[in-house]
């Protein structure tokens, strides 16, 4: 069977659903793949950044206490365009000009041909410090405020037999891609080319045009092989690319900047910490009558992507449950820490942690087990969500919940574990695929297919960041066009060669970009009129087809009222975690996590599973060990020795089951998968701890916190 599948995959054309060999596989396992730090050019300079050591204040003076011969030095005064990192708001300077708002803020850039010389530079900066804001609850500055409302909250609470309240907290999380941020900027032709480890070439492109005051055609951004992203290379590369480009333009030489680990941890974005308060009305038989949620996100010093992180967080805040009377209100505020930014899940892991722990507490108060209380309230086809979005006929959370309960024999297992140090916890969750609301319409993503002598070349700026985009998109094209997978060429993402197919974020690549390619391929197939690409090429030469995103019919969104279809579709999943607790030390060992997921049609089973496993492992770290220790706005544990991501010894066995319910507007029925697994691991683990008597309301559930919870229980 397996052999047959493989043989099928190597030459045949209908490869969607089959584990074809990944396009970048061989280069990655032989060490031939070239990442940013592997590139050198003649005349190359190395760049470094002088950063603020205080979290807020004015810069009084800057002194260069070293021999500056041979150095290129760039300050805010050298910026030819606008001194901003262009994203949502124009509030973040590329280089601090007179004042700093966080530790690690870039003040000065230096470049030299000799790396060693850069290690010897001494720059002293005098500051007039101001009192920093480090507690989000005390912040006077709100970056964004959103309310989602449905029904009549007063009526909902009046219908309730019981009101359950709770406050839940989540901490910062560091992406910890194993390859740190890095770029290489090459000046030439009155413009700049930037190669880099990044997720969103056109974000960087736009930021460079504004910073350097260059027309679009003078800026080129090329993605190099990228050693992990997780959102950490969504917004930050625009900062770093700008720095390298400034040095390159001033020196007239190529400049490479690759952060070391400490710098990457100190200066780049993290997941937003959150404080989430729930007040829920519920009937005695366990039906939700009113949901009132208050969310506070810590945005850090600048806006970056905070408004959209808040938006996604709020849209996921109720969890996948039905309720007629809902109010979700949230704010993201400024603090004087490095800006928080995009991170797999994008606000949803924070709010769904709260929702799912709260759901267990509701069950406890009603005497319902965790499956029962969820079954009563899980969204079903035809139900409406907080924004009024209607659940599709094949959608909803019930099926994954039941399958997870069945597969893990949840109730029996929980009974069997009673009285032991092992606990079982569940989390039911969902994740909206693609950009929020009208985001995809505004993006107007494009994808191109060009005929080659042998097959086709794909023109997209969707990036391969390990998730398998290169392979999956090629599978979609091969299948839709009816040509061998090997004949689909996937060049690196390059803004000079491919149109803007949107950022590689939001679990959108397979579903949205894949769909554009599917449509382009079907179009091209019609134009081939039964000929193979080679035959057509010989007869007619090159043909190219470009498709632009148009929203599926029937989708509506009101940005002002937060009413309508928040996402084209939702992926659904249920995690069951079994953990072992050492009651004396508070140490938790996750033993097994079963993850049942509906991600629509699975395009590549091995890689889809890899997304679920890897995301779940990242959620295990979020749940238990990954703690950013902030002291006065500075990450105090910016070393891998002290910021602890899961090793082989900390990662549980992960059992992944796909329930494939195709989405009609996704490529071959696919929805998004990338972020989904990040949402469920933490609440499932914490709920397993609840079953052992540890009332934990915050992650990471460090041994200290767990012990504390046990002593109160």
């Amino acid at each position: 069977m397996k052999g047959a599948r493989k043989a099928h995959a190597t030459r045949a054309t209908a490869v969607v659903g089959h584990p074809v060999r990944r396009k970048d596989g061989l280069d990655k396992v032989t060490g031939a793949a070239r990442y940013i730090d592997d590139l050198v050019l003649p005349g190359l300079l190395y760049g470094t950044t002088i950063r603020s050591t205080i979290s807020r204040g004015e810069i009084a003076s800057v002194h260069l206490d070293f021999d500056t011969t041979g150095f290129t030095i760039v300050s805010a005064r050298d910026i030819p365009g606008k001194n901003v990192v262009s994203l949502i708001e124009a509030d973040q300077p590329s280089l601090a000009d007179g004042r700093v708002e966080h530790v690690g803020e870039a003040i000065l850039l230096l470049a030299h041909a000799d790396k060693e010389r850069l290690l010897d530079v001494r720059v002293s900066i005098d500051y007039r410090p101001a009192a920093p804001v480090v507690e989000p609850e005390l912040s006077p500055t709100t970056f964004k405020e959103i309310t989602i409302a449905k029904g009549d909250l007063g009526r909902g609470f009046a219908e309730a037999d019981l009101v359950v309240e709770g406050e839940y907290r989540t901490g910062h999380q560091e992406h910890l891609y194993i390859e740190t941020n890095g770029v290489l900027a090459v000046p030439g032709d009155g413009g700049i080319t930037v190669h880099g480890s990044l997720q969103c070439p056109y974000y960087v492109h736009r930021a460079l045009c504004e910073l350097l005051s260059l027309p679009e055609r003078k800026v080129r951004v090329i993605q190099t092989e990228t050693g992990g992203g997780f959102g950490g290379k969504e917004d930050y590369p625009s900062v770093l690319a700008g720095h390298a480009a400034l040095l390159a333009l001033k020196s007239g030489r190529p400049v490479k900047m690759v952060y070391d680990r400490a710098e990457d941890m100190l200066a780049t974005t993290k997941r937003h910490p959150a404080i989430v308060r729930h007040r829920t009305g519920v009937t005695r038989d366990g039906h939700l009558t009113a949901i009132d949620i208050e969310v506070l996100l810590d945005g850090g010093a600048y806006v970056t992507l905070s408004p959209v992180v808040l938006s996604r967080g709020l849209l996921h805040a109720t969890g996948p449950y039905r309720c007629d009377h809902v109010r979700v209100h949230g704010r993201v505020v400024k603090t004087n820490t490095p800006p928080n930014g995009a991170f797999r899940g994008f606000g949803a892991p924070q709010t769904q942690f709260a929702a799912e722990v709260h759901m267990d507490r509701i069950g406890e108060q009603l005497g319902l087990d965790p499956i029962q209380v969820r079954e009563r309230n899980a969204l079903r086809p035809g139900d409406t969500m907080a924004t009024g979005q209607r659940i599709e006929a094949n959608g909803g959370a019930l099926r994954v919940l039941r399958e997870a309960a069945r597969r893990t024999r949840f109730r029996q297992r929980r009974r069997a574990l009673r009285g032991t140090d092992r606990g079982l916890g569940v989390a039911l969750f969902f994740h909206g695929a693609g950009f929020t609301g009208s985001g995809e319409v505004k993006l107007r993503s494009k994808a191109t297919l060009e005929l080659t002598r042998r097959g086709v070349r794909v023109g997209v700026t969707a990036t391969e960041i390990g998730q398998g985009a290169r392979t999956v998109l090629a599978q979609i094209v091969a299948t839709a066009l009816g040509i061998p997978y090997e004949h689909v060429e996937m060049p690196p993402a390059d803004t000079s060669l491919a149109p803007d197919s949107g950022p590689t974020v939001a679990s959108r690549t397979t579903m949205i970009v894949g769909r554009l390619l599917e449509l382009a391929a079907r179009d091209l197939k019609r134009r081939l009129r039964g000929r193979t690409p080679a035959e057509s090429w010989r007869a007619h030469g090159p043909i190219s087809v470009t498709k632009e995103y148009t929203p599926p019919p029937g989708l509506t969104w009101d940005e002002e009222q937060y009413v309508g279809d928040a996402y084209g579709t939702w992926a659904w999943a249920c995690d069951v975690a079994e953990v072992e607790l050492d009651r004396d030390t508070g140490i938790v060992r996750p033993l097994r996590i079963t993850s049942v997921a509906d991600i629509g049609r699975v395009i590549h089973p091995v890689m889809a599973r890899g997304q679920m496993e890897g995301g779940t492992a990242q959620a295990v770290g979020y749940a238990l060990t990954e703690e950013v220790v902030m002291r006065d706005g500075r990450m105090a544990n910016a070393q891998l020795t002290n910021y602890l991501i899961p090793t082989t010894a900390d990662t549980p066995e992960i059992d992944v089951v796909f329930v494939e319910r195709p989405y009609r507007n996704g490529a071959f029925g696919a929805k998004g998968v990338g972020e989904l697994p990040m949402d469920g691991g933490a609440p499932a683990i914490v709920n397993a701890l609840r079953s052992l008597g540890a009332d934990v309301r915050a992650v990471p559930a460090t041994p200290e916190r767990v012990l504390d919870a046990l002593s109160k229980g």
Partner: protein
Amino acid sequence: MRTAISRLSLVEPRSLRHALRLMRDEAGLVPLAGCTDLYVALNDGALRATRFLNLWPIEELRVIEPRGPVLFIGALATYSSLIRSADVRRRLPMLVSAAREVGGRQVQNRGTLGGNIANGSPAGDTLPVLAAAEATVVLGSATGTRRVPFTAFYKGYRTTVMRADELILGIEVPEVEGRQWFCKVGTRGAQAISKVVMAAVRAPHPRVALGSVAPTVVRVPKTEAALTGGASVDEARTILMSEIAPIDDIRSTAAYRRHVAGVLLGRFWEQTAAGRPVY
């Protein structure tokens, strides 16, 4: 900021005797071996030294062998060689347990016992073992060798009784009578720096040593005396928790460390009770 390598120099001794002469003749020369701590310090720019002495090639410092009543372990014995050594496994199994807890396999292959001692971190995994085993540190210099009881080796946080011209040649471990016990508590299952680490020996006079609860690895004489005198383990635990002086830091809290030290004492006592197999 990272230390620039070009400003550093490395001196290559021809032999142990030569190394000792170099240590005598040049102030500020810092010996290095497995470098598993050294490069971390260089990354932080935390080392002022610029001249280093490469001990790695000195084979005679790798020896692990019984010498009369003691087991000699050369300073350059790596964690992996401790784990592999039949002599260490037989005579000092708690050292094998400790060595397995150090970093990943790559660090175990390179890091040395002498380095762990010289680095003197209060969290050093092997150090409580040496304290509980009443090991002796053998120090060499151009003028001869001297022996210092391991429990008298540290004067304070990362400071030792070593003279500037001395090298650690190895340690001598006497026959350890009684059941040996080791446990490290950290947040992560592997490669964790300890929050509390304990090594102990169950003998008529029990010996208990802890790391990460004071500026140096410590023995806890009052706790040991209580156990010797027949106090209950609960009483001993109370004494222990007042006898140690842990601190809050980025890895844990003083309260947690104090509590867990008490837990470990209880586990040691329970798990080494007569008739229970330990190793």
